[in-house]
């Protein structure tokens, strides 16, 4: 489990979308989230859907990975659709089920809003499906760079992210170990009222807390011993570079935005 954690939801591949600069992907997705809210006609929705589906096809990611990412929100999408179907009373009556009149307006509105939410989730999930957490960390560091002017610790934030990526699997294992150790000592958490169960959290938290911060202290000492001086003058192993293909994507996406704004009613 811990090995799958660190790569996150990333599905390895060599498609154009995988090879794009992570900054390009983040920018496009950021603006996509905004532009989805501007779509309000059949044509504008179609443009966005085509854009999303074509991107999905280009990534060559098996459909089941994409579906897996959508599982938690299916319920919400369907719930939204049904609620709109019942509540909205516009247009002409289409048919009635169990005494509820289903209006054409309701059908259209329910579909449009479910579609909007579906598009949002689909496109944002493509970021983490095609980009490793480390690439995203690098991109975030680069993109937040202007914030350095207001003394926001951008480099430190990115380093903290990298340290977290390194620590998460270790501490998850530690948690599992502690839970087994305490169970073997006969700690029983399964019964009792709420108060007792919450109290039972303490024998798990104290050892976890102490071991985690001891590790952190050791790492800090190791960093100091190696002369860590902060971000100034540090060189990078992985350099991000904007290629021709990134520029092509920006142009294409600007076109998509223009079409959506033009075709909205």
């Amino acid at each position, binding site marked *: 489990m811990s090995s799958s954690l660190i790569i996150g939801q990333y599905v390895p591949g060599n498609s154009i979308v995988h090879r794009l600069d992570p900054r390009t992907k983040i920018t496009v997705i950021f603006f996509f989230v905004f532009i989805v809210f501007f779509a309000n006609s059949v044509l504008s929705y179609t443009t966005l859907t085509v854009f999303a589906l074509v991107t999905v096809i280009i990534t060559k990611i098996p459909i089941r990975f994409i579906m897996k990412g959508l599982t*938690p929100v299916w319920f919400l999408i369907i719930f939204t659709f049904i609620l709109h179907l019942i509540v909205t009373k516009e247009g002409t009556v289409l048919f009635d089920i169990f005494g509820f009149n289903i209006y054409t307006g309701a059908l259209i509105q329910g579909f449009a809003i479910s579609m*909007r939410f579906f598009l949002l989730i689909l496109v944002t999930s493509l970021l983490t499906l095609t980009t490793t957490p480390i690439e*995203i960390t690098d991109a975030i560091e680069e993109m937040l760079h202007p914030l350095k002017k207001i003394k926001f610790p951008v480099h430190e934030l990115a380093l903290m992210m990298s340290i977290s990526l390194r620590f998460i699997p270790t501490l998850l294992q530690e948690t599992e170990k502690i839970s087994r150790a305490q169970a073997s000592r006969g700690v029983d*958490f399964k019964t009792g009222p709420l108060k007792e169960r919450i109290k039972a959290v303490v024998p798990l938290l104290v050892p976890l807390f102490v071991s985690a911060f001891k590790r952190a202290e050791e790492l*800090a000492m190791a960093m100091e011993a190696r002369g860590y001086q902060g971000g100034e003058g540090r060189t990078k192993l992985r350099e991000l570079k904007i290629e021709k293909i990134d520029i092509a994507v920006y142009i294409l996406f600007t076109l998509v935005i223009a079409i959506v704004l033009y075709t909205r009613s």
Partner: protein
Amino acid sequence: MKGLRPIDLTFGAVFVCLMAIGANIAVWFPMLAIPIGGASIPLSLQTFFAILAGLMLGKKLGSISMITYILVGIAGVPVFAEMSAGPMALISPTGGFIISFIFIAFFVGVIAELSSKPSIQIYSIAAIVGLIANYGIGVSYMYLAMNTWLELDISYLIAWSGMIPFLIKDTALACLAAIFMVNIAKRVPSKWMMVKA
């Protein structure tokens, strides 16, 4: 603003991991799924750890640590509740609770920094303020999400009433956080407590 030392970075990173564990604590300890009115609600310790981050790291480092937590989640590592991740976790109606962790750590830190000595009074007030920030932002965001991008007309009161069971368990956990930290603060090396008045 003083720069961050290596120990600040590593401690901040530990809180990111603790948040990740806290979000999914019921995975390892299924007994922490609390049955309330038939349904079983998995206990999450996110609010608990966000309060601890404020108490232990102070307002600045605490809130930076929580920002890092959210960014790690956005980067695709399954650190949010139910092992979810990615930007879509923020778009869903419960995304406000994730964003509120930054403010919990900040406000708790502000209050914790009022006094140089850990005391149960200060810590309890801090924890309660953190809880208010948590639900104030979380529920308002949910209301906003429901009414704008899902266009469901749900009143503010209904949005709140759905969250009552969670509020009960988080109030209990906020109290536990205050008591826990007072006891921990006395026992750990003093440089671990980064809150300075």
